[in-house]
């Protein structure tokens, strides 16, 4: 009897899965077109899955091994089950192989089951609680079914009772694992995930590459939407990417805004996009809600505006664009791109940048700096430093990109310290002076692509007039934008963060440094230096050269927690239960360090905003400048501490 039922069951499930797959693909295709290498992507997919994705998953050994056993066992078992039970190839070797595969899958499923006994809060519940049982049902049913094939049990063992039980088991297993895969069940992640890896919008990320710059909007194309209003305004492969989410909640655990009680949960956001893609409400979402927003009140469909239907605007504005979610996501989903796309629509079409956002953007347009300071005051901080201007010295080694910190009295100390270091190393450098403009970072993260592009093109025009080997900046945000985002507008430069450059200077022996004596130090990785640009080592190398042993925080390196200052978050200022910099300062206090080294003006401002007593905040440039030993008496004059410039 089973020999008749089994193939029907298997093939019926496969046919249903195929119908589901077509239906699902049509859902994704509601999105806008995207330039993707379809065939090349598919061919590259196995490698992306085995190497790049596994690399991310392997950060959690338990889950990595579990997944290898379960998924590997399942894929093998599925193929063999179709051959053996579907096509009736009752071969003994195939039988043994299928037994092995189902056993492997069973072991994996057991570990999945164990994890689901007391799941951490970041994991979604609901149908996901059913999945280990489905996996067990599938593997056990097929294991027993295959025993006769392998010749370990006689045919017809157990009679019709066992046959009926097994049939139910198989039905359960294949509905969840074949047909559920394309009809929106938990196993949807395997199907959508595989295709997402194949047609990822940032193919450069695979094979050890890095792609973090936001994709430009084509403002000359009047027909193209300015950002994303409705789910169908995403590109189709973005929609596919959302659908690939496994709801593991790694993003939720890493998100600083979620931890601070701001109304953002990256996992929920992606799931809301899936709801928007398929239509419906978020009532079936079985994970943590956006803090302070109950589940079940939001819904939408592909043709309805997202904001105030699916998600509220403050959810989008809570994001600090720190990329911790993207870094953690085992499916390599691009949360930040999606958030900025939706912000673009709010800013460019609705004019709904919250709080100080509108003012900051107006200031950027009118004064080229977010504070609205008179552009003529950009060089006041260096009034007594006799810096060379690019205009007078059109060819230099280093173009020192000052950034908008020039208007901030605290950051001026960092800038002056770095100038001291450059002078001590006798570097041939110059600044743009009044020709410099804001890099456009804040405007872009706030969704104002138009202002960003205006600033970028004008900066590129300015830079094109001069010859320099590299650009060095103390601001990781400018660094990131100049390095990764100006390329799309024709600006390709060698850009370095000052920590990288100082590490090079120290290696080259150009700096004569005394050992630092100021007490213990921990280092806070800026998001835009670390996760965005992979520079974790140079700042630590500089600190080592000062004789400092960094007391690492638990969350450091690629897991570093954002200071709360990125993405215009201090400007949009969405209230939460606590402040992100306070949480980061608690991380810092945990190390017991007396000082925290930073490499970003935003981090400095945010961390110094924490109420005292707290560890001292020092930019790396300040630490190096303090440790400088100046040999020749002729340089004495530059050594004298000049009074702070008050802008």
């Amino acid at each position, binding site marked *: 009897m089973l020999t008749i039922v089994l193939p029907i069951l298997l093939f019926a499930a496969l046919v249903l899965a195929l119908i589901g797959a077509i239906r699902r693909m049509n859902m994704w295709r509601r999105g806008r077109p995207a330039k993707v290498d379809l065939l090349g992507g598919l061919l590259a997919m196995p490698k992306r899955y085995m190497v790049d994705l596994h690399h991310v998953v392997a950060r959690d050994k338990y889950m990595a091994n579990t997944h290898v056993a379960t998924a590997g066992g399942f894929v093998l078992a599925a193929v063999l089950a179709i051959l053996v039970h579907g096509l009736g190839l009752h071969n003994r070797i195939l039988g043994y192989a299928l037994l092995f595969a189902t056993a492997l899958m069973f072991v994996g499923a057991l570990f999945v089951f164990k994890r689901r006994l007391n799941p951490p809060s970041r994991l979604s519940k609901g149908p996901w609680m059913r999945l280990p049982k489905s996996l067990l049902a599938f593997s056990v049913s097929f294991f027993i079914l295959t025993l006769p094939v392998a010749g370990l049990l006689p045919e017809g063992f157990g009679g019709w009772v066992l046959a009926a039980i097994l049939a139910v088991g198989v039905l359960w297993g294949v509905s969840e694992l074949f047909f559920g895969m394309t009809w929106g069940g938990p196993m949807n992640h395997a199907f959508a995930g595989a295709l997402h890896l194949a047609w990822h919008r940032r193919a450069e990320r695979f094979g050890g590459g890095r792609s973090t710059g936001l994709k430009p909007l084509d403002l000359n194309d009047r027909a193209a939407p300015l950002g994303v209003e409705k789910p169908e305004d995403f590109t189709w492969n973005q929609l596919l990417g959302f659908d690939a989410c496994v709801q593991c909640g790694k993003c939720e655990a890493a998100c600083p805004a979620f931890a601070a009680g701001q109304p953002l949960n990256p996992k929920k956001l992606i799931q809301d996009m899936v709801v928007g893609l398929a239509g419906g409400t978020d009532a079936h979402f079985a994970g943590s809600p956006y803090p302070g927003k109950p589940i079940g009140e939001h819904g939408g469909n592909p043709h309805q505006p997202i904001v105030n239907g699916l998600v509220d605007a403050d959810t989008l504005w809570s994001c600090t664009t720190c990329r911790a979610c993207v870094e953690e996501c085992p499916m390599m989903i691009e949360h930040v791109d999606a958030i900025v796309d939706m912000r673009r629509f709010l800013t460019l079409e609705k004019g709904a940048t919250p*709080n*100080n956002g509108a003012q900051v953007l107006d200031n950027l347009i009118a004064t080229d700096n977010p*504070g609205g300071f008179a552009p003529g005051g950009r060089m006041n901080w260096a009034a007594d430093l006799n810096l060379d201007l690019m205009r007078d010295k059109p060819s230099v080694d280093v173009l020192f990109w000052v950034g908008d910190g020039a208007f*901030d*009295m*605290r950051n001026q100390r960092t800038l002056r310290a770095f100038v001291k270091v450059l002078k001590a190393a006798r570097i041939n450098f110059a600044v743009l002076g009044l020709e410099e403009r804001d890099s456009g970072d804040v405007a872009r993260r706030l969704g104002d692509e138009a202002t960003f592009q205006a600033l970028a093109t004008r900066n590129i025009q300015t830079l094109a007039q001069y010859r320099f080997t590299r650009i060095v900046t103390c601001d990781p945000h400018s660094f990131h934008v100049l390095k990764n985002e100006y390329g799309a507008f024709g600006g390709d430069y060698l850009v370095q963060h000052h920590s990288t450059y100082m590490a090079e200077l120290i290696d080259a022996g150009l700096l004569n440094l005394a050992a630092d004596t100021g007490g213990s130090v921990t280092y806070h990785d800026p998001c835009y230096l670390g996760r965005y640009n992979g520079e974790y080592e140079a700042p630590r190398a500089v600190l080592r050269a000062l004789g400092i042993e960094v007391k690492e925080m638990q969350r450091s390196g690629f897991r570093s927690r954002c200071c709360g200052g990125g993405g215009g978050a*201090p*400007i949009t*200022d969405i*209230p939460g239960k606590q*402040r992100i910099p306070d949480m980061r300062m608690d991380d810092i206090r945990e190390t017991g360090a007396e000082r925290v080294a930073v490499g970003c003006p935003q981090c400095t*401002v945010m961390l*110094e*905003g924490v*109420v*005292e007593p707290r560890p001292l905040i020092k930019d790396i440039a300040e630490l190096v400048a303090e440790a400088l030993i100046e040999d020749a008496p002729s340089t004495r004059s530059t050594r004298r501490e000049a009074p702070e410039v008050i802008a």
Partner: protein
Amino acid sequence: MSDIIRRDPRAEWIARNRLHPLHAAMQPHQLSWMGPNGVLRKNVHGVGFIGPNGIKRIDRSGVQQGGSSKRAASTQEQRVLHQVPAPAFYIGVVPDMVGGRLSSHDRDLLGLARQLAGSDGAVLAVVFGESKETAFATAGVDRLLLLDSEGYAPEQQVLELRAVDNQFAPRHWLLPDSRSGGAELGRRFAASLGERPATRVWQVKDGACVGRAGAGLQDVAQPLPRLILAAAECAEPVSETRHEALEVQLSTAIASCLPRIEDLGAVAVDPAAIPMAEAEFILSGGNGIKDWGLFHKAAVALGATEGASRVAVDDGFMARERQVGASGVWVTARVYVAVGISGAIQHLQGIGACDKVVAINLDPGCDMIKRADLSVIGDGTAVLEALIVAVDNWRNASSGGAGLLANQATRSA
């Protein structure tokens, strides 16, 4: 003031020296004068002084000339009286009279009018509504025209100014370019006369005037027109002369117009609701505030607009729009009282435009105290409590003699 009489040889010397400019001021009060019936009247109370034992002493030796018992009052020097018996021309001034008194802006304007009037011209002040001012003479008013006006009636006032214009034909009209009414009235008047005024004038020199233009990035220089709307501090107020402040009357009755704009009266505004950038007086609280109820009470008692440091806002004690600083509101208050704010750089940037900063803080080394004009080292709660009491006392005392106390305060400055 102590009862001990201290001789002031210098004052005595000035009193004897008729050539000294302060000679008149140092003379003891007039002791005798001719009465209306030709009888010599004497003020016996003005003679002599109270001795250290409280007994009145009369010294007829002449030594005691310079020091009468009214010595404190006599330091008020007598200004020279400037008279314009027959004005060759008039300079019309319409002061704002905020609260019925000349404001400092009005005094500056009168100073400018005096400059323009010279020795032949007369400054004609046109005052609408009830006036409580007593110092028109020392402010430089030669002729004073008091006109009735009630509530907000700019259109009626323009009609009256036109009548004044017809009768006195002033060479120049000066109005304060202020939000307290002068800017509006001046422009209405100009539009009604069909004359182009010079606005936001801050300098008048040699028949030309310079005023701010546009958004304040430019000045406009032009020949002095008849109508001038002058900014505050356009000239030094009159300080050396006294003037007659003779009241004049309009010779014609003013036709009253049917008011097209009806004044329904003032609307109660909560000082806490005033936008911070507009506020003149801000009481700002920070991390050092333990009792926010008391803080709000103090703000009400002082009539101050509330502000806060970033920390106080982050901790949820104050609304975000109340945050002062680089990332909050840049305030322009004349007086900024910071309680329990240590003064992060961003905060200090935000109060850069404040005139006077008062700090109340426990930590004498904090940056706010370095910035402050007056700092009190102490517990914010205690000082605020004392401040509420002090203000209440002052208000009670001053309800009778506000002028006196204010006067005292300025003198001790």
